[in-house]
């Protein structure tokens, strides 16, 4: 297997993992799937386009800014649209409607034509005599750092603890002073911020247009189901599996890899209806 394929599968995996973990976080605490998650990815990519490409701000600062801005949009939406509506099904439909709202809005602002973002890490690097695109390597490294940071945040911090407690037993968490409503707003912000980060680091590699959010969402949905809903570890495993299929398997068997990425979900669910790492109880 050529080494470029290996890096490529890691790139895909890291995108899916970042997307899936945001989706899982929001789901675990709010109990709804955010169908507009892909559009937050798109917003993040556009933020990078405007901040990094147009305004020329340093890539890492733009990345942080884009996560902050998009996360803030997510917080506003949770606080002023989803929470007042309350009922989960209605909230899901709101997220579906948000897909067209964001796509329409961005088309209005930025136009329908695709844009590209210059690579922040041009050129190639040689590692053990193998030449690899430094952009792809950097993407993987950034993604790994982000995933580790997320893991540490959730496992090691007070807020992370509150988040997990609120997700598992919202009532009991409230009895110990955890403000579940505030935690869910925060989590919506973090989830959307993660999607924006995924979009931001992928933007220079692919392109930016108002409709790029659809594919990553589907892949993230598949990833969380493969890994098992509600656990970050599951999202990581699901993302890696799908990344491998999307790249390594695509290299060996071509376009049938798409059928396999959908088929594997069904097969896994048949044998393990809770996903590979899902807990049977919630």
């Amino acid at each position: 297997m050529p080494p470029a394929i290996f890096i490529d599968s890691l790139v895909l995996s890291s995108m899916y993992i970042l997307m899936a973990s945001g989706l899982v976080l929001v789901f675990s605490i709010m109990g709804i799937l955010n169908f507009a998650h892909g559009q937050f990815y798109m917003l993040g990519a556009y933020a990078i386009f405007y901040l990094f490409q147009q305004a020329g701000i340093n890539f890492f600062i733009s990345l942080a800014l884009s996560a902050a801005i998009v996360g803030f949009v997510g917080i506003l939406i949770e606080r002023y649209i989803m929470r007042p509506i309350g009922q989960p099904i209605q909230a899901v439909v709101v997220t579906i409607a948000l897909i067209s709202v964001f796509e329409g809005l961005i088309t209005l602002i930025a136009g329908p034509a695709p844009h590209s973002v210059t690579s922040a890490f041009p050129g190639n690097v040689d590692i053990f005599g193998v030449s690899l695109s430094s952009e792809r390597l950097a993407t993987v490294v950034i993604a790994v750092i982000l995933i580790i940071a997320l893991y540490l945040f959730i496992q090691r911090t007070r807020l992370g603890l509150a988040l997990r407690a609120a997700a598992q037993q919202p009532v009991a968490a409230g009895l110990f002073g955890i403000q579940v409503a505030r935690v869910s707003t925060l989590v919506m912000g973090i989830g959307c911020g993660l999607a924006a980060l995924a979009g931001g680091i992928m933007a220079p590699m692919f392109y930016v247009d108002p409709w790029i959010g659809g594919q990553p969402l589907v892949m993230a949905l598949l990833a969380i189901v493969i890994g098992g809903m509600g656990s970050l570890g599951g999202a990581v495993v699901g993302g890696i599996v799908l990344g491998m299929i999307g790249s390594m398997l695509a290299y060996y068997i071509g376009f049938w890899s798409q059928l396999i990425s959908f088929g594997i979900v069904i097969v896994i669910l048949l044998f393990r209806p809770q996903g590979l790492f899902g807990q049977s109880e919630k």
Partner: protein
Amino acid sequence: MDKAKLKAKLPLILLLAFIIFTIIFPLIVKDRFLLSILIEAGVMCLFALGFAAVFRSGQFSLGQAAFLAVGGYAGALLASKAGLPFWLSLLGGGLSSAIVAFLLGIVILRMGGLYFSIATLALGEIAIIIAKNWDSVTSGMTGIAVDAPIVKIGELTINFATTKLPYYYIIVLLVIMAALMFWRIDRSRLGTVVRSVAVAPVMSEHAGIHLMKYRVIMFTLAAFVTGVAGAFYVYYLSWVGPPLFSGAQSTVALIMCVIGGLWSAVSGPIIGAIIVSYFGTMMQIHLEGLRPLVFGVLVIVLIWFMPNGLVELQYRFPAWVKSLFKKKGKVPDAPA
């Protein structure tokens, strides 16, 4: 006659009036464009009814459009390859869709909640990939052409190619039949069971209800109705091909159900489907590029003000009228 009795019968009278209205409507308003929108709205009514039926048994199917595709392809193949008449092709479309749903259902309905949703999403995508690549049966992207049916009833010959009116009456009939069926089911013991399954799956299982059985029944019935809708739609368009059945349609069905009102099994989906398809088409034609934005905002606003859907209006509207009169009564007070 006392008022109470009249009041109790009011919904029935209104319903009958509505049905009569739908029947004479195209005879009065001879707008072919409106007629075509209404026919498509009828197809979407069936689709939304099926979706709502599955949804009310506690499962959220993201791949419901695949049953539209199965019904559509089966109907087209039965009509063009086997040469079956119109009615039989419709039935065949529905049956094949039901069979597929039954076989899949006994396997995938075991999965709970979101796992089921995403499994159906994957199945829907797989169905489209199959339709695109199984050339010998589906002819890939080329699709299958279906000739407009010519129905002979005694001396009367109806050629569907020359007028679209028969399609309208057939879809109205189909929607009424499906609505009655789902309404009866909702009212029956089965319906009560189904709702309890949706509300508290674990508890009803403990109460001795075989959860799977009812889910499979509802899933299969819904697929039957959806399949008939698919076959009908293919006849109406006179062609079937993969782009007709994109997975996004399943989320559209959800939007329809929620806008119409989730807590009524029949009127909610029907109202939602008619509203969404009518205004959706109107927006597509008059708004062009602005359509997605306006559509999304409208859906959110509607849900914001009427989280229980448009059927809520029947309670809200009288209250609103009353409040209007009350305000009028207050007007003289104001200057004093």
